[in-house]
Each structure stands twice: as structure tokens, then as C-alpha cells.
């Protein structure tokens, strides 16, 4: 069902949650972290600010800060430790208003 980086191996019978990724409507499962929700359909969370490569998280325990992602409204969040919630508007690139 998903075509992105992660593979769902268990716990697949959960309620769907709608969110927006780069403006497009996507579905996650209730209890997914933002990282899981974004990497189920996609391959990256953001682009590195110091190199050409995209990033997709590293430690998943809130220590490395590699998984921060943009929200349309501006504030960034740590994808590995933030649960996805209905209607969230996430981006893999900076919002247009960012200088």
C-alpha cells in the first residue's frame, strides 16, 4: 500500500488519520509519529542545510535532531517524537514565506 521508505510489518489495523504533505492530502494511521507518517508515502523529511543530500532521521529517540521538519505555519517539529494528528500540514521544504 505505501510506496515510501518504511515498510509496515505489524499493527496495520488502526484508524486512518488525514494530513497534508507538501499540500497534498495523505493518510497515516492513528499512533504514527510524524516520521512514520511522512516516510510511509515518501523518502525524505527535509533537505540538509549544510549539504546536497536529503535527510530522513537517524536516532528516533529525540537525541540527534536530524528529523526536524517544516510545518506550513512556520514552527518546526521533531518528527520522531511527535504523533501525527488529523489536519497537520507538513512540508519537506521551507514554506514560501521563509527568507
Amino acid at each position, binding site marked *: 500500500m505505501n510506496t515510501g521508505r518504511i515498510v509496515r510489518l505489524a499493527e*496495520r489495523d488502526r484508524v486512518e488519520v488525514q494530513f497534508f504533505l507538501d499540500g497534498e492530502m495523505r493518510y497515516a494511521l492513528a*499512533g504514527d509519529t510524524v516520521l512514520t507518517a511522512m516516510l510511509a508515502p515518501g*523518502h525524505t523529511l527535509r533537505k540538509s542545510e549544510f549539504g546536497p543530500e*536529503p535527510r530522513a532521521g537517524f*536516532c*528516533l*529517540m529525540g*537525541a*540527534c535532531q536530524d528529523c526536524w521538519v517544516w510545518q506550513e505555519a512556520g514552527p518546526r517539529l521533531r518528527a520522531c517524537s511527535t*504523533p501525527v494528528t488529523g489536519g497537520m500540514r507538513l512540508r519537506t521544504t521551507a514554506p514560501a514565506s521563509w527568507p
Partner: protein
Amino acid sequence: MSEASSQKVVIVGAGPAGIRAAATLIEAGLHPVVIDEGHRAGGQIYRRPPDGFIRPPEQLYGSEATKARALHALFDQLVEAGRLTHCAGSSVIAAHERRLHVLREGEVQVIGYDGLILATGASDRVAPVPGWQSAGVYSLGAAQIALKAQGVALGRHIVLIGSGPLLTLVGAQLLKAGADVAAVLDTSSWHRQMRGLSGLAARPIVALRGLVLRARLGGRYHAGVTLERIEADASGIIAMRWRDAGGRQRVTQCDMVGMGWHLRAETHLADLTGCAFDYDEQWRQWLPQTDTMGRAGNGVYLAGDGARLIGADGAEIAGRLAAVACLTDLGHAAPSVRADLRKLTRLERFALGLARAFPWPSEMVRALPDDAIVCRCENITAGAVREGADFGGGEANRVKSVSRAGMGRCQGRYCQLAAVELVAAHAGCGPKDVGRFRGQAPVRPTPIGAFLRED
């Protein structure tokens, strides 16, 4: 009793050490505050999935399910009975003069303490491999957390690299869950692993369990490998290049690499509360000084992998010991610890065996090419760190200032050991002589608005 209730003991971390410490304090009549970053208590090893997930503990924790179940039940029951205050989803970001700054839901709150038990645990000890900044490279711990707490694999074709008990365990867990594990590459040779044998014999059942898991990996497991580079295209990694023990070049196609060389103690808060540190030759890292009970002085006590890397069973014991030390210093009667101290000696012997069998790959780090990234946060290269040593001399914090390695968002948690190794090699001394990066508050990124809202 009235004195007891007015004394405030704060525990940071709700893993095995933090939970046992809390229970011990409560038995003596205290009401501790437990601050934890997790949404549910358990720590990393006994991490619980969110509500609504259905796999039973046996499936999540395997042979350790009984211990996990007991700790979760104990903590939940103490919370329900109102015997402790649980601050979940909260990060201690600073500590100064017996006050902690705690970040919770975007606001900073100040909490004072008479006694502080730090049970902050550990994270993967990682070493840079050229290409490791690419999307799709994770720590071994990350692969395990993804499986346990989300029921997912972080890739379709997985290669695990490093050394240590977690390498084998994560490989076996992923296979069992149905993931495609293409190769498990151990930088420690069979010969080297045998050197840990006498220590590992201190816990024969645990050692045997490791061998059974290793057997399940079959031909995927390779000992004594040399890791060359992680290949990537524009969307992430595509292959692992390595040499086997016989020196033959191998390429394994993959879209995920999990890496780790055992553990690195999480010591930022111990640093900020003024603990002294010693370089530990066994674990090749700086660890806070404590007595056998975990007493660090100044009302601070340390327990679990954040102080001594002896694993979850050792953390439960250390949590009790730290609580007993704290109780004694605050003038309370405390239970006997003789049996716990005896058990601890055996666990320490086992841990020493692990350290010998699965060492930190210092030669690999020292041989990193100049263009390899050392700091993933800001893409600082091995060459830049070496240049920093030319300017700053063989001292960790000067090299940090000059090169910026250790000044990114993770605050050196994932580059410090490699950077110090490179500086030592460049300056012709040992990592101990180079020193360690000083911890700085806030120890987690904190939005400025969180401070502005404080009043």
C-alpha cells in the same frame, strides 16, 4: 514523615533505573517527581507503543517480556495511586543550583530539588562511515524503536553494521518480524570476540541466547569486516561497500543501513550538575564519577546506562542503589543493598566481556578520508577536524570551537567520540589526553518563545 513529604527528590528518566529508583523512594515514604521525555514510561529498552497498538509484550520484548511487564505495571500502579508525579513528554534542558529547567509543551518550567537521580540512559555509540549523512542511514537503536513502537522497518532491504549485542539482536528481531535483512556486518573478528569470553561466562544464559540469535542470522552474518562506504543517489542510499575478513570486496544493495558499536552514556545533565568525569578505558568514553551506590555529590545520584554501561538488569539494580544512597543522605532509613551489590559485580564482569569482544573501531575512525563527514548535523568533515587540531592543538574544546564539530543540534552526541579520536591521532596522543566536549545548556533545542512565556 512530615519531613519526608517536604523533601523533594526528582528523577530524570523513566526507564528501568528511573522506575526502580522511584519505587524505592516511595517505599520509604517520599513522593518523587519523575520527568521523562517518553509519552509512556519504560525507557528505550522497554519502550511502549502508543495506545491502540495490540502486539503483546512477548512479541515486543522477547525473552525480557516478564521484566518489561513488571516494570510497566509497577509504574502505572504508582501513578494511579498518586504516589509520584509523572511529567511525561518533558525534557530537562538545563540545571543550575539545584534547579532544573524543564521544557514541556513549548513552555519552560523551573523545578527545584533536594535530591536528583539522573537515569538518563544511553544512545548508540556510532562511528562515521563515508556516506553516513545520506537519507536511509539510522542507528541500530532507531531500527529497534521503529519496530517496537511503530511496527515498521525503516527500509525494504536492510544492512546492519557495527558491533555489539544490539547488532545481532536487531538483526534477529527484524528477520522475525518479516523484514528483508540482506547482511549483518560486524567489525569485530571472531578472534577478537573470543577475547571477551571469560567475562561473558558471568551470564551464561544471556551469552547463549546471543549465540542462538546469531545462528538465526545464518549466512547474513559476517565477522571481521572492513566498512568502506555507503553509496547514495539523490533520494537516499543504494548500497553498502565492504570487504570481508578475507579482504574480498563486496557490495550489498540496500536502502537502509543501521549502525552502532554498543552504547554511549547520555551524560549532558550530569555535566551541567557539576559531576566530575573520568576517561573509561574499557568503554573508550568519558563517564561521570560516582561511588558504588551512584552518589556523585552535591545531591546528585546517577543510575543506569547514563553512568555505567551494564544494561537493563544492571539499571534496575543501580536505580535501587541510587535511591538508597539518596534516602540515606536525606536522613531516612533505607533497605539493605548487599544482595544488589553482589549481583552488580557479576553484571559488571559480563559488561567487561562485551566491551572486550565488541570494541569501538578506533583504527577505522583514524583512517577516515579527509572528505568523510564526521558531524552529521553540519556536515563537518574529518579533514576540517584535523585542520582544527592544527590550529587548536590536541584539546577537544579548542578543536570544537575552531571546527564547529560538536556545536550542531545534537551537541556532539553523535560525533564527539569520533572527533576526539581523530584529534588524538593527529596530535599523536590518546583520546584521554584530548579531553571531552563540555556540555552546554539547553541540552535539547528550545524555541526562544518557551523562555519568554516563563513568567
